[in-house]
């Protein structure tokens, strides 16, 4: 494939009903009302020269290169800022406009370096292109006058350079930062000839509020803002469209290569999830894929104290198969299992669960979604009938009220956050429900109408109180409820009880009753109100209850089944949705069908040729308990680092240490590998061929940019293990795996690689009823028929603060790092977050004699660690916060065994802790656990 260049229509699309027909250079063209002359011309196949215009940004009209003549109108209007009118006749090439354009270009070029041949943007420079297009042949002003050619570059950002000498001050970067990203970090400083692009008030890019999303680099028409990889490697020559492997937004990217070398990742304009936008991780943080820490050869060892021994694939696979079978012979068929990964493709996940169910002969398969969004699967299945979010991302553009509960989109899901912020700037109102004052509460041009700063663990009390307001103040959408739902009366009686009123719950939740009432009214009365939520909902002892509580509220207010509404989980990892869809939970086959369902099981038994168990298997926390009990002794861990990411790490470590065989498949020798006997090197997303499914149920193609550096695809390795265990599994291509998934899964019946290549992506359900997918679910009826109201009684968590542990710890993530940091810690992103910090309120710090930057001890009843303090009033007094991106800190050493009552999702968000000044010689938990002391390779 050659370098993919999407067309640029100059100004954004103006979708709408009414159309206007105009004539451009004699060609008739019909476009929606409000479309610019520039865009209409482009749609007629006529490119008007431009510099300050690009179709991701609103027109600005500053460069004056796009001037045209319009019959019957005076002067030469800018085509970018002039909307079409019916019957308009536009002339884009006349002697008058040609002369004007040449004059404009002369001025630009008189203050621009004439180093095209050695410039990093040579061949990809719009200024260069436009000089050619307008026929520039001379610069009458010369080059010796006052200029900006000596302006110093800013090389502070790890990923891109800012060279103001090449800047034409078109403001595309400034506008992209505001309009696309919504950060407003860039500005034009000075006036007239002194005008210059500036990140903040005289700061460098690195020190400014810039979030390195790359929107400015993308928008820049010259080499002023340029990826450093392009500077160093040269301009790419071919593209492969693929999907980001970081968060659950699932952005589409063009991987741009020069030969076989990846030069840069450029967000794809046709990507359904991101529509041309990106964040710092997807855009720039891909260097881990070629990091020297990567292991490319399989390795084995008898004992975890032995050094690793590199072996060939055959030996590694045979070792796994023989040892797994030996364990089963000694301890029974249910003594082994596997954990699949939400970072892997649907096809890889599918073969892992197939290996467990058919080759291992049990249902001991779980996925890392267990520890993040398993309550979403449970709660939405119970109420709506399907374990997935209700909307596509575009839907947020129609929301009038956005309620963000327990999510921090600007850090965790930044590209979706940009969509959300755009809608908020357009006037939608915002309610944030979070103990922490996340950025969204107050950021440029955004101010939450209400921030319900609840105490951790009281989500259910808050949602019940909101429902109380809706029911007792007669704000229920009766026609929706009567037509579409069941169980309303029992639920309404429950939430109307006095103990659920905002006044009664205020002492528990800490949320002022009047504020909660106002927020509930806002939600109920908005024409379209949408809920977006994250792990601040699910990672609680009542995570599933809270999911059902939100679903109840949405149904009561009729906020389901159309654009602009819904209940929307923001999934943590790239393929959380997909790994759940693919039958990774121990109780479910693909498509969320229980293993006890005889008819469903028969489908799989007939296709797979094996009798399958009708009983659920072990979930991840149950595997650990069973390992310590001695009944579970062999584990295949596919692309997950449970020894860093899971709670109560002492317990996890004890479980792993108790096993006879731990097999780890990963890019790196991660923390879990310390307990492993076999290490199988994995492939990075750049080497994978398959699909990911994002938080909006969008199935995106992942295309291999390069061959697997390990010599094998991961689905191939899993298939070979199953085969070596006596259950032949063979595929020639991942498309065959997807065909099998479609064969056994009604919601995927119409999905194939061919369809995805044709449509770009598709949102399941995709079948005979919806051959092009389903952007919005539950439109005419719920998947289960009637939406079901479920009574959601508030039950306080068992995790209580005490005089010994008087603070509550809650954990989360930060923009520049991702999950356990295995990828992002091996990129330039460490410039922003070199270590995990403990945020605590100034009052809590003062009471303990702690100042900003002090090394502090963080201790709970199960463990302790040390990390540096950051004093911040984002947290309310009594609540502290940290991330878990660095193994050396080992934040999960302090989190406990508490979990969601329905799904066992850990209660990461609530741990009673104490914080105190640490002795300078005190060690991080990770050091105590032996992190970074990995056995050497032979």
């Amino acid at each position: 494939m050659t370098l993919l260049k999407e067309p640029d229509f100059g100004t954004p699309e103006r979708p709408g009903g009414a159309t206007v027909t105009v004539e451009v250079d004699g060609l008739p063209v019909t476009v929606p009302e409000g479309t610019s002359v520039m865009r209409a011309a482009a749609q007629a196949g006529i490119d008007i020269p431009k510099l300050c215009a690009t179709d991701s940004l609103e027109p600005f009209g500053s460069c004056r290169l796009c001037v045209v003549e319009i019959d019957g109108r005076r002067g030469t209007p800018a085509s970018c800022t002039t909307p079409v009118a019916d019957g308009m006749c536009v002339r884009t090439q006349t002697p008058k406009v040609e002369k004007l354009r040449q004059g404009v270009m002369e001025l630009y070029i008189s203050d621009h370096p004439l180093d095209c041949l050695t410039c990093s943007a040579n061949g990809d420079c719009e200024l260069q292109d436009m000089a050619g297009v307008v026929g520039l042949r001379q610069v009458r002003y010369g080059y010796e006058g006052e200029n900006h050619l000596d302006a110093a570059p800013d090389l502070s950002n790890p990923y891109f350079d800012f060279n103001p000498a090449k800047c034409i001050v078109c403001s595309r970067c400034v506008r992209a930062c505001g309009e696309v990203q919504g950060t407003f970090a860039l500005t034009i400083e000075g006036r007239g000839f002194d005008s210059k692009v500036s990140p903040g008030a005289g700061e460098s890019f690195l020190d400014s509020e810039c979030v390195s999303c790359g929107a400015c680099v993308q928008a820049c028409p010259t080499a002023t803002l340029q990826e450093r990889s392009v500077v160093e490697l040269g301009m790419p020559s071919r593209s492969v469209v693929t999907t980001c492997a970081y968060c659950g937004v699932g952005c589409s990217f063009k991987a741009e290569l020069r030969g076989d070398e990846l030069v840069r990742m450029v967000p794809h304009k046709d990507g359904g999830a991101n529509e041309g936008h990106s964040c710092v991780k997807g855009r720039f943080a891909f260097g881990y894929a070629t990091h020297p820490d990567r292991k490319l050869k399989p390795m084995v060892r008898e004992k975890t104290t032995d050094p690793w021994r590199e072996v060939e694939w055959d030996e590694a696979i045979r070792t796994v198969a023989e040892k797994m079978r030996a364990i089963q012979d000694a301890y029974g068929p249910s003594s082994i299992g596997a954990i699949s990964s939400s970072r892997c493709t649907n096809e890889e996940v599918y073969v892992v669960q197939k290996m467990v169910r058919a080759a291992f002969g049990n249902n001991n398969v779980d996925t890392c979604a267990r520890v993040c969004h398993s309550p979403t699967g449970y709660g939405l299945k119970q109420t709506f009938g399907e374990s997935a979010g209700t909307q596509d991302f575009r839907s947020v553009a129609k929301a009038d009220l956005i309620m963000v509960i327990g999510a921090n989109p600007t850090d965790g899901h930044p590209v979706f956050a940009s969509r959300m912020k755009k809608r908020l700037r357009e006037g939608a109102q915002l309610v944030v429900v979070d103990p922490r004052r996340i950025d969204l509460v107050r950021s440029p041009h955004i101010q939450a109408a209400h921030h319900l700063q609840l105490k951790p663990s009281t989500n259910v009390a808050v949602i019940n109180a909101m429902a109380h307001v809706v029911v007792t103040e007669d704000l229920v959408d009766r026609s929706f409820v009567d037509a579409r739902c069941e169980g309303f009366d029992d639920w309404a009686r429950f939430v109307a009880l006095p103990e659920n009123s905002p006044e009664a719950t205020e002492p528990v939740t800490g949320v002022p009753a009047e504020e909660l009432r106002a927020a509930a009214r806002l939600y109920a009365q908005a024409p379209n109100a949408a809920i977006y939520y994250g792990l601040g909902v699910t990672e609680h002892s009542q995570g599933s209850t809270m999911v059902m509580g939100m679903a109840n509220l949405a149904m009561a207010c009729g906020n389901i089944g159309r654009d602009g509404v819904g209940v929307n989980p923001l999934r943590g990892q790239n393929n959380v949705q997909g790994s759940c869809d693919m039958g990774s939970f121990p109780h479910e086959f693909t498509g969320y069908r229980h293993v006890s369902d005889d008819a469903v099981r028969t489908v799989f038994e007939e296709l797979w040729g094996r009798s399958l168990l009708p009983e659920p298997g072990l979930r991840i926390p149950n595997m650990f308990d069973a390992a310590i009990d001695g009944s579970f002794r062999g584990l295949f861990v596919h692309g997950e680092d449970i020894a860093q990411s899971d709670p109560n790490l002492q317990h996890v470590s004890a479980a792993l240490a108790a096993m006879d065989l731990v097999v780890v498949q990963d890019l790196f020798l991660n923390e879990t590998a310390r307990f492993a006997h076999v290490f199988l090197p994995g492939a990075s997303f750049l080497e994978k061929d398959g699909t990911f499914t994002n938080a909006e149920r969008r199935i995106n193609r992942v295309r291999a940019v390069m061959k697997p550096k390990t010599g094998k695809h991961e689905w191939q390795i899993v298939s070979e293990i199953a085969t070596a265990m006596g259950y032949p599994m063979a595929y020639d291509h991942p498309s065959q795996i997807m065909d099998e998934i479609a064969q056994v899964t009604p919601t995927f019946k119409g999905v194939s690689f061919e369809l995805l290549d044709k449509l770009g992506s598709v949102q399941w359900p995709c079948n005979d009823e919806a051959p092009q997918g389903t952007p919005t679910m539950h439109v005419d009826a719920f998947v289960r028929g009637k939406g079901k109201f479920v009574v959601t009684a508030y039950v306080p968590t068992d995790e209580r603060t005490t005089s010994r542990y008087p603070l509550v710890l809650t954990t989360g993530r930060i923009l520049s790092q991702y999950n356990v940091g295995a990828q992002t810690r091996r990129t330039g992103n460490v410039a922003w977050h070199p270590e995990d910090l403990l945020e605590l309120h100034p009052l809590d710090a003062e009471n303990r004699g702690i100042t900003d930057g002090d090394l502090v001890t963080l201790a709970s009843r199960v463990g302790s660690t040390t990390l540096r303090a950051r004093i911040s009033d984002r947290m309310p007094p009594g609540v502290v916060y940290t991330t878990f991106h660095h193994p050396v800190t080992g934040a999960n050493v302090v989190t406990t065994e508490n979990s969601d009552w329905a799904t066992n999702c850990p209660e990461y968000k609530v741990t009673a802790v104490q914080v105190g000044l640490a002795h300078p010689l005190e060690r991080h938990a990770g050091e105590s656990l032996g992190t970074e002391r990995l056995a050497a390779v032979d």
Partner: protein
Amino acid sequence: MAAAVPSEQRMANQIAANLRHVPGDEAAEAIAGHIRRFWDPRMRARLLELVETGADGLDPVVVAAAGLLTRSREAPAG
């Protein structure tokens, strides 16, 4: 200490606490149904052992629910 309570007891009691609003016999059936649907046979077996040995601190509704559960042939020793 909560950590000393067997996992199955802790989890079963937690399910009971979250289904407290379900009336009478329905609560026991709801708990049993949840456990049947989501628990591995060996976990169910362990819960039944706890009930049979009269473990301290078991919620009475859990005890009632246990009566509705049957041991699975799949539960391994260990």
